[in-house]
């Protein structure tokens, strides 16, 4: 069965650079979520989209933005990167009324 696809799997950036992460949800899933998980920490909810509209916002820094496109894929844009942005970034998708989230394998961002 198709799963959530995230790219790139690994990304290395310098401070103050910009990074873009991509997420391709499971086909027919209408909701996409982004999470950030620092080393040894629990996943922190950043933002979610339902039918291409932002539905919930968590602890997403102002330097970050995200959107969902017409083909339902989503992108997380991170600018002015800081060392503390180094983390695993997970994307998840779901059907809105199920509450069951399917997570991708994550994108590991390292900021040097």
């Amino acid at each position, binding site marked *: 069965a198709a799963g959530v696809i995230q790219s790139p799997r690994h990304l290395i950036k310098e401070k103050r650079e910009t990074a873009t992460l991509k997420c391709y949800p499971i086909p027919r899933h209408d909701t996409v979520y982004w999470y950030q998980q620092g080393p040894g920490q629990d996943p922190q909810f950043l933002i979610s989209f339902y039918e291409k509209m932002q539905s919930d916002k968590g602890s997403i820094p102002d330097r970050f933005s995200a959107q969902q496109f017409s083909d339902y894929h989503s992108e997380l844009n991170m600018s002015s990167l800081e060392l503390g942005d180094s983390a695993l970034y997970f994307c998840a998708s779901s059907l809105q009324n199920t509450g*069951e989230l399917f997570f991708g394998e994550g994108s590991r961002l390292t900021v040097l």
Partner: protein
Amino acid sequence: LAKTTQPISMDSYEGQEVNITCSHNNIATNDYITWYQQFPSQGPRFIIQGYKTKVTNEVASLFIPADRKSSTLSLPRVSLSDTAVYYCLVGDRVRTNAGKSTFGDGTTLTVKP
């Protein structure tokens, strides 16, 4: 938001039954309880979800008392591969289960030979 409280860690041995309890005293009427499992450097994986009483699937059971202020995830006959972090989430299933109830402090389960 319904805050959840779980034990930070638990140890068990292969073949034993493990019960992890989650407290959620301010759970709302529309809230469901969902459990996820996470291995290192992997995304969380859905285990089970319930609203009240008991729910069972092929990997776990979920027990929810009548007042719904707590829930217990039961893993029968654990193996070494069940060593992971387990998260209890409480949220409105219709809107966004995880968006309104962020992953709190999970329980690190260590299964020993």
